[in-house]
């Protein structure tokens, strides 16, 4: 049933993507509530984080419990550059990406060769270490006090300051993330990444340098986490180490798994749903966590792969295109035309 539905989605994916994009662009003009727009921006930031984490865990198949560490590294990089050196956003944002990416490479080089769960544990520990560094390196991070009055970002003189402007900045960054990840996955590199996920021994025997691709994906995923960090820092104007703990890492991983490992559309659904639900439940105060928990448990019982974990839109589309031949030439999409 889900597969049939997703096939239909895929068949009209251009139209649907267009419609979603238009609606997304209209939201900040229809909604004026600062509160709602704030949730939207946070959700978009989470989308960037979840997409990049999904590339690592779902597409490459390498679990990481430390994604928030790179989020934090990006946030601190942007915060420090913009407060201490007055750097504009066209510097702070790329710098946050580069620094987070470099940390990804530095952590990956010695650890991505490790088999099995070692890497998973290393990522978890790394996240904790980063938190402790952020907490204690007073001169740079101001420790538990955090960095305050981080300036709003300005790109080449273009100031981003209202909620609506931030909304579109975040949207642009989400689109950038999607395009980069999608283009990578559609190339030989993407095929190699999926091959590594499915069978490392076979991948290496087909001439794929596993280690290199693991480092590459880790670096790219960390870059985008860093980008989300820069957005976070310069959007909220205040950061402290409590935002980049293992808790945040776990929350992101839950979003990835909720949407489905390896499915980018799922990552959108996971990030949006799980960013919005806690807000909707805010009125229920103490029951909030409980209900959130129940929703997750039920989903995992009904769909252990997450919502779209078993769905591959590309393959559904390819199979769908074959069908007309089997139907004796009856053209797909004919029904679609008649309806409209």
């Amino acid at each position, binding site marked *: 049933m889900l597969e049939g539905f997703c096939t239909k989605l895929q068949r009209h994916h251009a139209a649907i993507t267009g419609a979603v994009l238009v609606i997304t662009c209209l939201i900040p003009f229809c909604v004026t509530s600062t509160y709602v727009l704030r949730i939207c921006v946070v959700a978009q930031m989470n989308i960037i984080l979840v997409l990049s984490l999904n590339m690592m865990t779902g597409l490459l198949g390498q679990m990481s419990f430390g994604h928030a560490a790179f989020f934090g590294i990006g946030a601190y990089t942007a915060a420090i550059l913009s407060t201490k050196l007055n750097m504009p956003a066209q510097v702070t944002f790329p710098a946050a990406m580069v620094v987070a990416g470099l940390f990804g490479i530095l952590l990956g080089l010695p650890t991505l060769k490790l088999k099995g769960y070692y890497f998973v544990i290393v990522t978890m520990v790394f996240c904790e270490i980063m938190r402790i560094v952020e907490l204690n390196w007073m001169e740079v991070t101001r420790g538990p006090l955090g960095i305050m009055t981080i300036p709003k970002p300005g790109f080449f003189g273009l100031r981003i300051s209202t909620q609506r402007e931030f909304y579109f900045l975040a949207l642009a960054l989400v689109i950038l993330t999607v395009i*980069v990840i999608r*283009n*990578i996955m*559609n*190339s*030989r*590199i*993407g*095929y*190699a990444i*999926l*091959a590594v*996920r*499915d*069978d490392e*021994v*076979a*991948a*290496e*025997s*087909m*001439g*794929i*340098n*596993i280690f290199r691709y693991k480092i*590459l994906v880790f670096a790219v995923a960390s870059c985008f986490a860093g980008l989300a960090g820069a957005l976070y820092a310069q959007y909220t104007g205040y950061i402290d180490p409590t935002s980049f703990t293992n808790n945040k890492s776990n929350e992101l991983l839950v979003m990835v798994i909720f949407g489905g490992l390896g499915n980018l559309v799922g990552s959108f659904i996971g990030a949006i749903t799980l960013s919005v639900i806690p807000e909707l439940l805010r009125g229920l105060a103490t029951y909030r966590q409980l209900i959130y928990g129940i929703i997750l448990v039920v989903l995992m019982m009904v769909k252990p792969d997450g919502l779209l974990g078993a769905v*591959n839109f590309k*393959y559904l589309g*390819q*199979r769908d295109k*074959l069908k007309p031949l089997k139907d004796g030439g009856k053209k797909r999409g004919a029904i679609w035309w008649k309806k409209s």
Partner: protein
Amino acid sequence: MEKILKVDHITQKFGGLVALEDVNMEVDSGEIVGVIGPNGAGKTTLFNCITGIYKPTEGTVELAGKDVTGWKPYQITKQGFARTFQNIRLFRKMTVLDNVIAGMHVHTKSNLLDSIFDTPRKRREMTECQENAEKILKIFDLYDQRYEMAGALPYGKQRELEIVRAMAARPKLLLLDEPAAGMNEQETQELMHRVGQLKEMGYTVLLIEHDMKFVMNICRRLYVLDNGRLIGKGTPQEVKKNPVVVEAYLGKDET
């Protein structure tokens, strides 16, 4: 004739266990050569030494005159070996077509920037890959299943797909580890026909096989391994008559 493979005095030890001892072999360009031997003789270990999964304790492996001993598997594949596995190892969650495209990795060149910016060069390369992959899939009658998940194929087809994937790397030497294992009579026949086709297409093949009929029909020369040692070699007829071989292997197997 150009020498594609030269295995020189290979020894492979696992702790106290000597899996291969002083094995020598050669494969010339265009040949189909078989490796036979009873269970645990060291056949798969020999393949693993050749393809870099194990580093031989002693001895060297040469590929077309180049010493590749101790290289990493992916480097060795780049140099010109490609293999299949005794226990099928496909990319199970990728389609048949994508498995083959992934197999072309060593012949594609676009880098990270090409990929991110979706350059014409990258797009051209991907189209070429797809066309070539479809071409080989047609030869192996896998074209109609090209959009099916590799893991969902029937067993015999999975074995064939693994061969196709290895062919996609356009190797100088194709190593097949028991390609007919687990196949029924008819599938084996079909496979034999296909391996014959490989020869016509100019591939050089080294294959491990248990099925005696299979190797006798298809291989020009055979190497016989037993307990890690080479106990015989030659044409199928010569091997059949070799008393040591008959005792170690054929005798037990054919009665």
